[in-house]
């Protein structure tokens, strides 16, 4: 009963925030509403018995996406632009409202029919639960991510790398002033906060990585927390943009993809199917490489710079 009430409140909040994102006059307000929308989505993942997703949505969906949106807004403002919604050339409401309504109706029909269908034996999820011991971890989501559907995770890392390469290819002129600099560095409170929070973010990231085998967690959540520590360092002027990607950064960017592929190919050379990771140690090895890559890629995407170096 209480659960149902909470679901109703969450649903109303999510819908309200979505409406505010679309209808706000000010783009800044729309972005803030979207960040809070991400937080409420995280709560609904928790209600839907998906704690891994709740962690990931809070860290990546609300946190990193929010930071990216706000820093882009800041850069647009710094170039003297204040985006205002122009009134002309929007398609007529009579066209878009029925389209959106039909799309919603389609989603409802799909969901309703799918929920009414009787449970089919032998679905992928059931097989995953039954054969989880073969993978070596007890968290089913980690088992599926790195065991049963390892291809998806491998290609997901490739997508992340491709996004950074694309962002790097598009940004032709290197703007060293893209990040706030020494103005924040001189505030003493910030230094004290960083000296506490950044080591804690590393600790939490490694803990999430290690706990991902048996409890909610994993490489993606840990990578996002580590990236959040890096974003803090960028924002407070401890890290500044560098004109070129250093060798260590290049190694870190491709580490996840290459370790994953290498382990998978070695397994194939050893006679098994490709990417059938032979036990929990292989999963932790690959996840550590993924953690480093994810964190580094997200921080570099935030900084919109080829590389980062310690501020002089």
């Amino acid at each position, binding site marked *: 009963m209480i659960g149902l009430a909470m679901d109703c409140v969450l649903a109303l909040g*999510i819908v309200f925030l979505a409406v505010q*994102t679309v209808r706000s006059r000010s783009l800044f307000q729309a972005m803030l509403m979207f960040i809070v929308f991400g937080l409420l989505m995280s709560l609904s993942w928790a209600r839907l018995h998906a704690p891994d997703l709740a962690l*990931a949505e809070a860290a990546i969906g609300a946190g990193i996406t929010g930071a990216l949106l706000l820093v882009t807004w800041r850069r647009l403002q710094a170039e003297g632009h204040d985006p205002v919604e122009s009134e002309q050339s929007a398609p007529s409401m009579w066209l878009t409202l029925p389209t959106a309504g039909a799309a919603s109706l389609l*989603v409802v029909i799909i*969901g309703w029919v799918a929920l009414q269908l009787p449970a089919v034996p032998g679905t992928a999820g059931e097989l995953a639960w039954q054969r989880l011991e073969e993978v070596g971890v007890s968290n089913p989501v980690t088992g599926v*991510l790195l065991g049963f559907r390892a291809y998806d995770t491998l290609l997901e890392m490739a997508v992340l790398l491709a996004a950074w390469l694309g962002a790097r290819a598009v940004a032709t002129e290197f703007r060293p002033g893209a990040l706030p600099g020494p103005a924040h560095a001189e505030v003493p409170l910030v230094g004290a906060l960083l000296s506490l929070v950044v080591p804690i973010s590393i600790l939490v990231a490694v803990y999430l990585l290690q706990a991902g085998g048996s409890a909610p967690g994993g490489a993606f959540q840990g990578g996002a927390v580590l990236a959040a520590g890096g974003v803090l360092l960028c924002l407070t002027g401890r890290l500044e943009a560098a004109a070129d990607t250093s060798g260590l950064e290049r190694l870190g960017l491709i580490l996840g993809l290459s370790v994953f592929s290498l382990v998978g190919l070695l397994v194939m050379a050893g006679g098994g199917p490709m990417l059938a990771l032979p036990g929990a140690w292989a999963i932790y090895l690959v996840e550590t490489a993924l953690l480093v890559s994810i964190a580094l890629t*997200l921080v570099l*995407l935030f900084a919109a710079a080829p590389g980062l170096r310690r501020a002089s």
Partner: protein
Amino acid sequence: MNPSALIYLLTAAIVFGIGLHGLLQSRQILRQLLCINLMGGGIFLLLITLGGGADGPPDPVPQAMVLTGIVIAVSATAFALALLLRWHELGDSTELDAVANADANTHDE
């Protein structure tokens, strides 16, 4: 059917519809990005609701897929924001049609 599942299903549908409507109606690229992310969020909610998280052990396969989807959404958003900044540098506007309209105007003269 579980009433919670119905609530989340309706929420997913409404959020998807709102995102689609906003995508069609808005001219600012930043808001269009937000609407695309809204649509993605709605579909993720649909996937997990269909995964039967409400009763019994949750199905891990849609959860893993939505986790992958969240990371891909943030990658795509980051790339799109880099494109937006470059577009703004080139044409000093944050709307997709403005540069094309400006070109058309100069051609008419």
